[in-house]
């Protein structure tokens, strides 16, 4: 197991290098001079030249690439042009709300998706199954930001039950913070629960045709017992995979919900940095999220072995 994790960590290196290279190139595929774009059209020539040398843009491309890697490896992602503080510090300040929101949203997604998937697999072909399938299709088809806007209109504007937008950290009152995050977490969770429900259903249906399920039934076990003890645990692999994927998708999905609900997380920071053309911050966030994705994938594979003793690495 440890050897496997070590091998996988080694295999991560080329992917992360490629990811970092793509991130590095982002600034260079920009048509025109990045320094001019960052400073705006009214900037003086001296200011542009100064920023160019500050960013190292006057060096040849391969040298810039080497420098960028040296920086990244030493944990230095440069300095935010807008805030004037290190990018790592800027990101650190915005990390907590994103992780908190994603965690809540995952809970919502699993809470809706897994039971819906199990029920619709057990009652395959029933009215309930068709209903769940239909809702799941709506879930993957509805634009997330549109759902968010309609929730705001209903629960905040018309019913006045929840705050329109904003963020309160849990340290300043758990109930208050949950009230603020209820709509964003539901928006993200609902959209993703559709995927979980469909994957759970499909995985359950693959398992129920196995011989050991027939044996369990033949032993006269109660059908609920068969479902919960024999079928579901064997369908868990697929569910874990999809939850892993969803967690990384949520880092991206956060951009939408965090922007609409003005939650000061990574997503909102990314969006405002894009609008401000704060390239070092954009690069830092994209690198962080992509690396997180690779790590989450590794954790998912490790989790396989934990839930299924047949899988050994």
């Amino acid at each position: 197991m440890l050897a496997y994790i070590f091998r996988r960590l080694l295999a991560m290196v080329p992917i992360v290098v490629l990811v970092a290279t793509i991130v590095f190139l982002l600034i260079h595929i920009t048509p025109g001079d990045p320094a001019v774009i960052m400073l705006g059209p009214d900037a003086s020539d001296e200011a542009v030249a100064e920023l160019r040398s500050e960013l190292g843009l006057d060096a040849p491309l391969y040298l810039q690439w080497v420098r960028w890697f040296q920086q990244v490896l030493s944990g230095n992602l440069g300095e935010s042009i807008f805030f004037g503080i290190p990018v790592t510090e800027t990101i650190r300040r915005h990390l907590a709300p994103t992780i908190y929101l994603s965690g809540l949203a995952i809970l919502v997604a699993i809470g809706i998706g897994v039971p819906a998937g199990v029920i619709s697999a057990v009652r395959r072909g029933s009215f309930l199954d068709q209903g769940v399938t239909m809702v799941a299709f709506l879930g993957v088809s509805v634009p997330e930001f549109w759902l968010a806007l309609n929730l705001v209109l209903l629960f905040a504007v018309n019913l006045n039950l929840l705050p329109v937008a904003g963020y309160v950290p849990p340290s300043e009152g758990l109930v208050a913070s949950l009230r603020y995050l209820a709509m964003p977490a539901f928006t993200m969770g609902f959209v993703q629960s559709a995927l979980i429900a469909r994957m759970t259903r499909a995985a359950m249906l693959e398992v129920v045709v196995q011989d050991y399920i027939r044996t369990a039934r033949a032993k006269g076990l109660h059908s609920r017992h068969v479902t919960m003890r024999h079928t579901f645990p064997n369908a868990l692999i697929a569910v874990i995979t999809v939850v892993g994927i969803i967690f990384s998708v949520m880092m991206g999905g956060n951009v939408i919900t965090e922007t609409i609900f003005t939650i000061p997380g990574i997503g909102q920071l990314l969006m405002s940095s894009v609008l401000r053309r704060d390239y070092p911050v954009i690069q830092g966030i994209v690198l962080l999220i992509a690396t997180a994705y690779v790590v989450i994938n590794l954790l998912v594979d490790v989790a396989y072995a934990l839930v299924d003793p047949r899988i050994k690495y």
Partner: protein
Amino acid sequence: MNGDGPNLGMAPWKKRWRVLMRRPVVLVGGAIFLALVALGLLAPVISPVGPQVMRIPDRLTPPSATYLLGTDDFGRDLTSRVLHGIRLSLVIGTTVVLASTAIGLPVGLVAGYLPRLDNLLMRLMDALMAFPAVILAIALMAALGPSAANVTIALGIVYSPRMARIVRGAVLVVRQFEYVTAAQALGLPDVKVMTRHVLPNCLSPVIVQGTFIFAYAVLGEALLSFLGAGVPPHVPSLGNILAGGRVYMSQAPWITIFPGVAIMMLVLGLNLFGDGLRDALDPRLVQSRTG
């Protein structure tokens, strides 16, 4: 797969067609999508007025006989704008599918057929996949600048690894069939074996994936435009109409409701159709359903 690979001749196509037509969701999905395609194609003809015509006195008019879907804050007819928005979404969806196929298909084909290049190409695709689609699209748009063509480029790049993976998976299966070995034994060059014998037998997953990428692209355009990183704000795209209506949500909810419904129906139709198509084209499912 019950070893039934070689039986995938012409007859199963009839079977598949029957399976396809027997599933009501496919018909419903296809019908929804085709209806929206018709609306989009005919947008310039059936729109009551131009999508940019402003009638300030009529601003924020609720849906009525004159303005079927109401008007926006500039008094522009929402019916015309949504119809043109659907049209643009269809154009972007189509071009994104073409772009992601143009990149992903050759990569997947080569990676699946030539084991030497497999690792290199697929790790490259993995690196691209490591970026959540939204993040990569936003980052690319930040670099490229807002325009419909750049939305297509950004989304095309974002979704090409999905296409590459699907094609590679199909090639790995097809490569083992006897007719491929036979073609190789005849001394055909790799390029010919790939394009004449392998590729034509890998097209059904490409078509299925294409419907999903189309759906993602429609959602992607709406999202990017909504965030202000997509099509320039003056262009009537579904995302832009939604973004513009956001401020007036409580006074004039129709500005956000109708483009949202249009996006949802477009994506729902494609998802239902693609899902049914996937089932119909999966030989395992054809076997089990038709006995």
